């Protein structure tokens, strides 16, 4: 199997985080601090990534600012020629530290907001005062001149405030905003009954986004991640397994996506043992669903197979019990009814915070 050159690397520098959002993309089984990769190993990985053709490096977590060596990591990555994007909660980054990151060559900051209503945002984040700190952080980013993206995960309790979120992002000086419906893997799956919006609200959100895009054209870039469970066609997850992007976990395991560790039987290799390019090209986990040969029907003979790549492997697993199945979001999936059933399941208010 010939592996194309990857475009993006998501580095989960740590799973430590001051927030406890119930839709966190980290796995249920979090890596511990003592197992995290050291500075030199991360720098080696970044350099290997740049040589493989990676253009964007997303420094994420957990909260990446929990790493004391963050500025060194940014400096090294920038030196390797990578475009560096910091994905942060904004908690724990002082103005001085932000300045240090900007001087180290940071290209862009992406700040999460949980809601526009402070009490609601703090409730979801599980951290009193988080929202206020985030607003201050956005001002600090603006003062450095670094471009800012605001991102918000949309779910049942904030779906009615998308317009206000976009307005707030603009007031904070964001150039780009990312509105993403909750994804139901790991923590999100655990909390699905509380997070899932009503169908009518989910569909209305998509229409609102079109109106907001028209209203803010030329001033704001709005990226939208639609709600899987109310879609007729599956998302081309990560634009194809092992095709454009890779994740490195805090302890060095290399994954094709956030949730890939949920798939049983996959053998993930570690950057402590091998080079990133060897893992990308040769590891069984990356080759498991690369290309189209692995597909069964209805994907194998489908004209869309090179466009949506059969949807999401982790979603196929979560909903049908087998990662090899067509993503049941697809209307051609014989198990499509499982999605409708899950999206219409009784609502439940209780949230399990990510810990």
């Amino acid at each position, binding site marked *: 199997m010939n592996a194309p*050159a990857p*475009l993006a690397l998501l580095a989960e520098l740590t799973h430590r985080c001051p927030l406890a959002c119930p839709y966190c993309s980290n796995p249920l089984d979090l890596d511990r601090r003592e197992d995290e990769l050291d500075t030199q190993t991360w720098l080696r990985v970044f350099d290997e990534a740049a*040589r*493989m*053709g990676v*253009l*964007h490096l997303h420094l994420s977590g957990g909260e990446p600012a929990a790493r004391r060596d963050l500025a060194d990591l940014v400096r090294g990555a920038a030196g390797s*020629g990578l*475009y560096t*994007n910091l994905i942060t909660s904004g908690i724990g980054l002082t103005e001085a530290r932000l300045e240090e990151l900007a001087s180290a060559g940071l*290209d*862009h900051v*992406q700040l999460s907001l949980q809601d526009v209503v402070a009490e609601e945002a703090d409730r979801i984040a599980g951290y009193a005062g988080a929202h206020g700190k985030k607003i201050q952080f956005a001002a600090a980013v603006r003062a450095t*001149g*670094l*471009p800012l*993206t605001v991102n918000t995960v949309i779910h049942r309790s904030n779906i009615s405030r998308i317009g206000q979120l976009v307005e707030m992002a603009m007031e904070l000086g964001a*150039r*780009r905003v*990312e509105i993403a419906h909750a994804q139901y893997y790991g923590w999100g799956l655990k909390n699905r009954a509380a997070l899932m919006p009503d169908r009518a609200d989910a569909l209305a959100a998509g229409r609102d986004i079109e109106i907001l895009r028209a209203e803010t*054209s*030329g*001033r*704001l*870039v709005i*990226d939208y991640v639609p709600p899987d469970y109310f879609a007729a066609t599956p998302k081309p997850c990560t634009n194809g397994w092992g095709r454009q992007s890779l994740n490195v976990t805090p302890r060095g395991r290399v994954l094709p996506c956030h949730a890939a560790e949920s798939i049983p039987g996959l053998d993930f290799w570690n950057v402590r043992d091998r080079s990133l390019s060897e893992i990308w090209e040769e590891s069984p986990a990356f080759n498991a669903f690369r290309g189209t040969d692995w597909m069964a029907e209805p994907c194998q003979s489908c004209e869309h197979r090179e466009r949506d790549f059969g949807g999401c492997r982790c979603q196929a697993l979560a909903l049908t019990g087998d990662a090899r199945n067509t993503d049941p979001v697809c209307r051609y999936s014989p198990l499509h009814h499982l999605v409708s059933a899950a999206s219409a399941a009784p609502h439940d208010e209780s949230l399990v915070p990510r810990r």
Partner: protein
Amino acid sequence: MTAALSADIVPRLARGVRLQEDRVRGGWNLLAPERVLKANPVAVEVLKLCDGQRRFGDIVDDLTARFSVDRARVEADSAALLNDLAAKRMVEL
């Protein structure tokens, strides 16, 4: 339809946007937050001159002279490119 650009404006790449040679795939990319645009050879020449110093008129003069092409055509193509990138918030005009 794209509007013409005044000769006096000074276009520049927005902070957080950069033009970078792709040593693995060849060619040049315009890198921005969550975006990679493959820059065609004409765009590369235009964008290399958007240094925050040169006026649009100077950029058009430079390209016209170097590539011996029709000035009106260079002006229209460059304006279309820069207006499009400004709408994407990648260029500031």
